[in-house]
Each structure stands twice: as structure tokens, then as C-alpha cells.
């Protein structure tokens, strides 16, 4: 009974996470310029991978006792995603990439 509940929760979290990752990638492929493209994957992917890692924690904790080491991956992703997004945005401004709001101003 308990294992069924855990399996159901794991399945919901997996679908949620994969859906978020897919939406982020569709945003990356479909949006018009680099600054809007940056918006999709940096938020959706971290949340998607976070949900998948939560599902993995649930799945293995129910079978092999409490395991929390997947939190390391999600913690690292949550810390590193804003930093890399910031650097990519700065590089895009530096290279004067085309924006749908006209040319970017000097930083």
C-alpha cells in the first residue's frame, strides 16, 4: 500500500519534471531572440530537473532507506543556473545581439 502511494507520487513528479524540461526546450527552440530564449530553459529546466531528482529521492528512499544524495545535484543546479544565465546575458549584450526591443544600450 505504502509502496503504491510512493510509486504514484514518483510517477506524478516524473511527468511534471519531464513536462517542464520539454516546455523549456520548446521555449529555447521557438522564441524570437537570445534574451527571450534565455528565459525558457534557465527556469523551466532547473525546476524540471528538480522535480525529477525529487522523484528519484522518493523512489530510492522507499526501497533502500533514506537517501538524500540527489539533493547535491539539485542544490548545485539551483546555485549554478542563475550564474551561467547571467554570464550568457552579459556576453549577448557585449556582442550586441539582436533583440526584439531594438538594439541593447551600452551597459
Amino acid at each position, binding site marked *: 500500500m505504502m509502496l503504491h502511494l510512493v*510509486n*504514484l507520487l*514518483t*510517477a506524478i513528479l*516524473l*511527468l511534471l*519534471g*519531464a*513536462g517542464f*524540461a*520539454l516546455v*523549456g*526546450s*520548446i521555449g*529555447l*527552440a521557438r522564441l524570437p531572440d*537570445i534574451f527571450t*530564449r*534565455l528565459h525558457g*530553459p534557465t527556469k523551466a*529546466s*532547473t525546476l*524540471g*530537473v528538480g522535480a*525529477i*531528482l525529487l*522523484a*528519484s529521492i522518493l*523512489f*530510492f528512499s522507499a*526501497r*533502500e532507506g533514506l*537517501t538524500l*544524495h*540527489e539533493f*547535491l*545535484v539539485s542544490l*548545485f*543546479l539551483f546555485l*549554478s*543556473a542563475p*550564474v*551561467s544565465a547571467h*554570464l*550568457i546575458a*552579459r*556576453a*549577448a549584450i*557585449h*556582442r550586441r*545581439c*539582436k533583440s526584439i526591443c531594438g538594439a541593447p544600450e551600452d551597459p
Partner: protein
Amino acid sequence: MLNAVVLIALTMLSVALLLNAWRLFRGPDATDRILALDTLYINAAAVIVLYGIHTGRSDFFEAALLIALLGFVSTMALAKFLLRGDIIE
């Protein structure tokens, strides 16, 4: 039931990986390609975690951690190179 859901999630992530690869080849600017590569790394880590659930072995997470780490370092190095023309000044 869980097995079918894992396979569905793997399919969705494969479509996401294909979309990222499309942006990686097409991207008009180098920054687009860096962003696509970064997303590709993160999605690959998710695929490896999913594969770990599929096989029921818990030692796949180390590979996911390693991939996430390498993705961050390479994204930072590439963006830094575009910004400064050099990685370590």
C-alpha cells in the same frame, strides 16, 4: 505503471534533447549555441537520473552530478571567452 511513466518521461526528454540539438546547430549567434549546450547538459543529467530509476540502481546519480558540474564549468568558460577574449586573465 511506473515503468510506463518512466518510458513516457524518457520520450519527452528525448524530444527536449532533439530541440536543444536543433538550436545548437541553427543558433544564429555563439551565445545561442552556448545556451543550447548548457540546456543539453542539464537535460542529459535528467536523462541519467531517469535511467537510474528505470534500472533501479542508485549509483547513477554520481554521473549526473559530474555532468552538471562539467556543464556549469564549460558554460562559464565559453561565456567568459566571449566576454573577454580570454578565459583566465
